[in-house]
């Protein structure tokens, strides 16, 4: 008898405790980022930007409490997928966002979409999701991978570069970046090198660049790769003869490293991007100083700006559904309309849920003792949509 009672006790408590998570006055957003490993110089800026956006929303949307739950994917696709599952099953999140690296998004997004969640990539611009694999519940608050290098291709043509040596790490985004520059660059691409992701010493590639004597070098080395590559390029003396044009390799996330190492030869280096901290629009003007105050005095990178937009995009969806996130169609329609102040000014989505936006040339400048990327002239690409948008059957 006693035995039965003991066995029954935990069962009874299980029945007695009401399901707390069913209470629906809180809307939970799961944010999947790289918060450890050297790649976290990007993740930490994005986390800070989500927090700033949360603060600017007053922690509430449509009268409901908004809760952010951060998870670290350790820069590994398998862990990214696991954490996505954890956010869905344990935390019962209503939205999934974050996702910096395309190969991690590729492993994680299908899990979220299958569970019926709205997934917003705050950085990873995997080409497939703009075209064939577009999904009604998938949004991208950044860009498609090949767009930024396409803008760079135009810039290279304008600057009279006739031959180009192309370097990128060997993974999904690296290959798509290369495709982008190939698409618009009119000169000759003398060589393409897809280097291993673990590579930290470019001596072999630098020797090949010296032998090939191109007019310019195009690189995509985001995060902590950038400082290592540019250091070695300068050590080989090539920075004096062959200029390097980059996408996502010198940006707001790693500029403090370049400045700390006093790599002054990089001042004036050009890249292309959809955003710059000196864009003239209300959201950017509100976001940049708030971010600097929140995060070590750093000027936000475009990564941070995208994260800020990603949360505001989700908030726009919640507002449109009047806080009833179970009405996913209303949420989605609200997000498609995207009625909020974006860091792009006004944000407009294509039917594949990727932004249609401008891309600018930017250069590294020293402004008030702080290195940052400053917009140069008119947009290189205007109202640009991913070229494979047509493959999306939505």
């Amino acid at each position, binding site marked *: 008898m006693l035995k039965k009672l003991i066995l029954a006790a935990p069962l009874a408590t299980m029945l007695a405790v009401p399901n707390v998570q069913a209470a629906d006055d809180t809307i939970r957003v799961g944010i999947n980022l790289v918060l450890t490993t050297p790649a976290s110089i990007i993740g930490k800026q994005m986390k800070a930007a989500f927090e700033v956006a949360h603060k600017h929303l007053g922690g509430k949307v449509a009268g409901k409490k908004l809760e952010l739950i951060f998870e670290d994917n350790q820069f590994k696709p398998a862990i990214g997928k696991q954490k996505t599952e954890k956010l869905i099953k344990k935390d019962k999140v209503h939205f999934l966002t974050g996702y910096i690296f395309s190969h991690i998004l590729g492993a994680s997004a299908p899990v979220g979409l299958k569970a019926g969640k709205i997934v917003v990539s705050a950085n990873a611009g995997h080409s497939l999701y703009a075209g064939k694999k577009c999904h009604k519940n998938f949004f991208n608050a950044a860009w498609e991978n090949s767009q930024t290098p396409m803008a760079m291709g135009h810039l290279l043509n304008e600057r009279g570069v006739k031959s180009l040596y192309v370097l990128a790490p060997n993974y999904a985004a690296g290959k798509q970046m290369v495709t982008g520059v190939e698409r618009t660059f009119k000169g000759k691409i003398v060589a393409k090198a897809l280097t291993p992701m673990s590579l930290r010493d470019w001596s*072999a590639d630098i020797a090949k660049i010296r032998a090939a004597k191109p007019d310019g070098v195009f690189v995509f080395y985001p995060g902590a790769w950038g400082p*290592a590559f540019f250091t070695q390029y300068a050590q080989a003396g090539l920075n004096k003869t062959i200029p390097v044009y980059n996408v996502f390799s010198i940006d707001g996330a790693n500029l403090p490293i370049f400045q700390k190492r006093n790599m002054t030869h990089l001042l004036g280096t050009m890249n292309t991007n959809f955003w710059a901290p000196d864009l003239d629009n209300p959201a950017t003007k509100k976001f940049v100083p708030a971010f600097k105050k929140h995060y070590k005095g750093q000027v936000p990178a475009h990564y941070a700006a995208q994260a800020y937009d990603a949360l505001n995009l989700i908030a726009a969806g919640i507002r449109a559904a009047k806080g009833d996130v179970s009405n996913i169609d209303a949420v989605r329609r609200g997000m498609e309309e995207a009625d909020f102040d974006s860091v792009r000014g006004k944000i407009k989505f294509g039917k594949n849920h990727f932004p249609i936006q401008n891309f600018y040339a930017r250069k590294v400048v020293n402004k008030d003792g702080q290195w940052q990327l400053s917009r140069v002239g008119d947009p290189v690409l205007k109202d640009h949509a991913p070229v494979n948008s047509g493959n999306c059957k939505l």
Partner: protein
Amino acid sequence: MNYTLLAEQFFNGFQLGIILFLVAAGLTLIFGIMDLVNLAHGTLYMFGAFFAATFVELTDSLVLGMILALPAMLIAGLVLELSVLRTLYERNHLDQVLATFGLIIFFNEFFLIAWGPEGTGINLPPYLSGIITLPGGITVPDYRVVIIISGLLVAVLLYLLVSKTRIGMLIRAGASNREMVGALGINIKLLFTLVFGLGAVLAGFAGMIITPITQAESGMGEGMLILAFVVIVIGGIGSIKGAFIAAILTGLIDTMGRSFIDVALLSFMDSVAAETAGPAISSMLIYILMAVILAIKPSGLFPPKGA
């Protein structure tokens, strides 16, 4: 054929080989003599990088900073041996793998928290940041020459230590037959501690001299560890000579593969296929080399006598 490029890539491969040798020398001694599988050997390489970067920043001198980092490495190695690894000698290899893998995770997080995700680095002083132009238009950065010379110097010192001194004799004896050395009344515990300290200094030295090129970041040791294991398997576990030859061979093959495979493939493939296959094949080359050598000589090129 572009001979200038060939010569430059030979030089680059040789330099990679030197770094690999410094890491592999300690690993092969620790594995060969102490029968300890130390996955945390790459962590010691990372220690060297962060120590050197920190001391260089504090003293504002590349040479002084690196000289100070050497005894710091020795101390770190000895502390690690006395506190953790000593308890693992009696355990089986699986326990050793688990424990030293734990050390990797612990120290990667530790450096991430202490130095931040952006890591740190060393700026080369002006007298080392030039380039040397050799006859035939071969250009090499000054600092990479310094790496090669200092690495070769360490290799010579290590050779003298192992083949001409009493300690070296014990090390060689330990590699051949550990039990017999103990039975002859040699303090094997002390010998192990010294060998581990020596291995730590060698790996740390490699991390130090590479930092001005690659920068120091958390997790930098793992890629190096895998290559170092390939090197000691090729060279024969426990053999310094084997480690040297295998390291140079691995460095050359890896660099040459990355430089010329894609060109070679283009001669009989279309460019899209060559672009995909090139990086894949070149990153496999050293493992293919290892498999071939294991098939012909299962205990490596230069197994220690009696092992």
